[in-house]
């Protein structure tokens, strides 16, 4: 198959509608379908687009790909294998919660109560782990996106043409949800060329990024050639530090979940729902039983206990600068360990921002000349 990079148009779809799964365009001939960035969808409806992408990924991971895999389909690929990794992640988390909570139904009351204390903490720990592991990545990714204009999570819709199996030739076009920079060895540079979202020119995206890096786009001969290495380096650094820091954030989150305030939390959703119907009961228990406030208070208190800081005292003494240290009590050995764990997470995030937002090679190369350009821009390029 031949197609011209110079002519290919990675533009967004005309009607700006988000739709996944079977698409109108799938009926087109093989050459008319092509991968495209979901940049406009992400810009206009970031939450619904992300949710839809994730929902599709999740159903595929639990249903579509395992069926293919168990059959040993010749169309099974590495992407599908990786997507199935969500299954042990989610089911494993549920199993972990079960290990600490399920058995207590058979325990005697006092044992069940003490098991519930630990069970609450462990279940919260699993949830906090998952939340912080994913959320913490944004602490580096968002600054990189805003300062450098590089969205390391930029999604794209990948079209896969499958081999026919058992005469199902009509259903050969498949969509996969990938990220343009998921591979640092082979980033999908091509998707950024001629993308109307970034501008009218072929190199609009690269020019935009070069501007963010402090170059004058007008002075750079081949902004794409110049910026590709810089973008790649930024992506690698971002990935390194998001990976490293995310596990320490997750560990810190588990540490917070292990604190005493959670022991007293009666996390009984059924009881709460029952109370919801009974207004008198709600009124009676409302001040203490308002879940979100109660949860937030406990979260704050647990975090304070985890790192040995009494935020309540600090807030009380806010006006009295001399006494503000009252909140910084003498930390116990455990709290020092908590500080180290939290410090590692925070430190790696700060370090990640420093490394990812700095272009160390900027001053070494020429500002106007692409150093390794082998491509003559005037020629039409043909890639097979």
């Amino acid at each position, binding site marked *: 198959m031949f197609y011209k990079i110079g002519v290919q148009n990675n533009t967004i779809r005309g009607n700006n509608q988000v739709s996944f799964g079977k698409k109108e365009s799938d009926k087109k001939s093989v050459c008319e379908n092509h991968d495209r960035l979901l940049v406009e969808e992400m810009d206009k409806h970031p939450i619904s687009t992300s949710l839809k992408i994730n929902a599709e990924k999740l159903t595929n991971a639990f249903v579509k790909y*395992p069926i293919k895999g168990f059959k040993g389909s010749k169309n099974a*690929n590495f992407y599908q294998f990786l997507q199935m990794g969500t299954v042990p992640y989610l089911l494993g988390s549920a199993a972990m919660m079960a290990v600490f909570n399920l058995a207590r139904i058979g325990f005697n009351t*006092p044992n069940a109560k003490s098991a519930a204390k630990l069970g609450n903490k462990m279940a919260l720990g699993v949830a906090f782990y998952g939340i912080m592991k994913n959320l913490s990545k944004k602490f580096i990714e968002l600054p990189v996106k805003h300062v450098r204009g590089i969205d390391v999570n930029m999604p794209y819709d990948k079209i896969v043409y499958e081999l026919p199996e058992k005469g199902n030739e009509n259903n050969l076009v498949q969509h996969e949800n990938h990220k343009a920079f998921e591979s640092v060895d082979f980033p999908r540079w091509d998707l950024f060329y001629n993308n109307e979202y970034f501008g009218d020119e072929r190199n609009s995206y690269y020019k935009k990024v070069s501007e963010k890096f402090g170059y004058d786009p007008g002075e750079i001969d081949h902004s794409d050639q110049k910026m590709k290495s810089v973008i790649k380096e930024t992506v690698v650094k971002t990935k390194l530090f998001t990976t490293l820091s995310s*596990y*320490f954030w997750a560990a810190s989150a588990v540490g917070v979940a292990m604190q005493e305030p959670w022991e007293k939390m009666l996390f009984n959703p059924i009881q709460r729902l029952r109370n919801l119907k009974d207004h008198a009961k709600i009124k009676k228990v409302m001040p203490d039983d308002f879940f979100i406030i109660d949860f937030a208070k406990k979260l704050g208190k647990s975090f304070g206990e985890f790192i040995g800081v009494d935020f309540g005292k600090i807030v009380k003494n806010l006006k009295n600068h001399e006494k503000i240290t009252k909140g910084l009590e003498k930390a116990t050995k455990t709290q020092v360990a908590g500080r180290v764990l939290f410090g590692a997470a925070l430190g790696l995030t700060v370090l990640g921002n420093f490394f990812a937002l700095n272009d160390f090679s900027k001053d070494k190369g020429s500002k106007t000349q692409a150093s390794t350009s082998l491509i003559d821009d005037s020629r039409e390029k043909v890639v097979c």
Partner: protein
Amino acid sequence: MSNLLNSILSNQSIQPSIQAKTPEFTFDADGKVKPLNYKGKLLPSRLFATPKEYAHDLKQDILSIGKAAKGKANDYELGRINDVAMKLGSLGLASYLFIKNPLKLDKAMQFIGFGTFFGGMALWPKLAIQAPLRARTGVDIHQKYIDSQGRKKMLHQDPQYDLTDLYSREDLDTMGEKLKVSDDIHDRDNFIKQRAKKTAIQGNTLWMMSSFVTPILSAMGCKALEEPVGNLIEKGSLISSAINLEKGMGPVQKIKNFFAEKSLQRFLRKNSGKAMTDELISQITQKLGDSANSADISAAIKESLKQMKQKPALSADMVSSAIAGIKDISSEKIAAAMTNPEVASAIESGSVDKVADLLSKAAFDGKRTGRQSQVKSTIKNLINKSIKEQSVSDLTDEVAGKIKGLQSSLLSFSSDRALLDKYLGARVVEKDGTFIARQWNRVCTKVLKILKLNDAELSALANGEISVLDKKFTQLAADSAKYEQAIAEITKLINKYEAQLGNASEGDRAFISKVQAKAHEMCAKAVKGIDSDDLSKVADAIKTSENTIVRNAGERTMGAQSSFYRLLQTFELYKQLDKNAGGDLTSKLTEALKKQGIEPTQTMIDKLLKSCKHILLEAKTTDYTEKLAANNFNLSQNEYKAVMSVLFDTKNKSTQVKRVLEKQFGPEETAKILKGFESYKSQFREKVVNWENPMKSSFADYLLDEATHSPNATERSNLVGSTVKDTIQGCARKMKNTKFWTKMFGISLAVITAATLIIGLTFGRKSKMEKQAEQESKING
């Protein structure tokens, strides 16, 4: 691409940097560059990597992180960094929880949990999927290869990246045979490779779909390791605490002490020459108290420091102003007395007593009357008060020196004490995971196992239903083989406990004398270090703590022993209740009642028999202080006395138990055990059950008695020990919970494993299409 490459290589003057690499290329007949030969190869399959491989991989990973920080790493390196980060994060968390948990076993379990989790994650696919599949089809779904760049990857990771060319002839033949690929088909190797690939896709899918089992595996692993690890820790702390006690302060403590000394020295230097205000004294006390680690000693330090204030020298002015205005002596007389050389010399010598004596005499013109001695003491008080008020002292070098000396004594004392506490903690402190607690758990588990409870009985016992225990003990007493086994097993465990405390023959007595000697040694050393008279109160506090240490150790040992004897006594009681085995409790009770002048009725006997069971199974100290009134037994004084005289009868030499023990341990050992048993009974009778012990009107009174630290109360509660019901109920609960938990997750694990193995059996089979294709490819077809 090859054209482009050729043009670059042929134009070497433009690309000098690539010139150096040219020898690596090979050229074909037309002078065109040939692709490089691949260096990739399959790696042998092993359950675990060698240490050398681990070290190599670790080095590569660290280098990768360095590369990635500069933005130069590739996908492979970033993938590996993810694994490293996951382990680092998990280790960080395990370390945090290690520090957070106070118990050694809990600490160890954090890392065991980490190990079993990652171990389970790695072993599950190997054992449940890879190994059976490999045995059946010859395909190793986790076959690894090393590529030309030295990167290790899984051969079947990406089915669209076909690397099956790396298979050797032998591999293909083995797989072909196991996968039953016909021998006589065209392109057989390709058939085998396709089948291998298909099997690997299926296996990898199963791996992903079943890996959620890891937490269950990890939990089961932890449960299985908890007991042996606990045993190791228990033995370890017994041994290490004994060695450390002999060896004395360790290097870590020495460093800590060094810093504590430096910190105090800095503080004293900073405040040198300042007045010894109460605040400064408190600060010094706090610093010294941290070293002493005892409230009593801290209080003594504070008091001593206050007394160390320097007294002002006695002067005529001071005396005059102190006693000015005193009714009994006129100012003229005072002035006159002051001129007396005798008074002057007394003032100079600083003797308040003599001055007061002379002045009071002067007031009454030398006459010694009762009034005079009153005036003398008033004068003395006034002068002393004035001295006290005027005693302002500074933190002089002399005082600082005394404080430093005190600190060094206290530091050494508290370090020694910490070692002794650890020694005692490992042996007699009943806390989760300590030797004594674990030993008791073993005893109870043994009892429960011998009692052979079914699930319903175990559950009832866990809920505290005493009737089950009563029923089971009665059954046990009737079965002499089991009865003997129970007593023998329990006694063995207790003997082990006693042997651990001291030597086997002397048991706890040797232990207590060792503790006493050690406590005396360290207290004497500390007191010797504190030679200043000003600090005598601190020395006294240290001397007192010696008794406290020994008493605590003794009480704890006594508590443990009493609980054992109580269990033994319970066994004895049930044997006495068993009439078939010659049990004669009823006749003994009748006899005892008659001695008290009561003619027993059957109802009365039944009530007393019931109370006997209650006393041994459930009675707590309060039951004795209230003379069993709380449980509606309503025993009269005579009835109570009759019951107790039967139960704690020292004349009856425990014949039933004796017989069993002699059979198991021989006469010598039995005599030793029975001696302790009898002594326990007589002490119990004297100190706990005695009717003449003050009868408490209410439970609150009893608590009040506790609150005033009456030695009797502690001793009594130690003699009573823990109730048989409480100990067995606690153990039953633990056993029931473990059973339930193990059953629940054991079944889950078994089901998941079976399902995985069965699903695995369906992999690698030929589909209809494959069979057809194979048929069509037959050479002779």
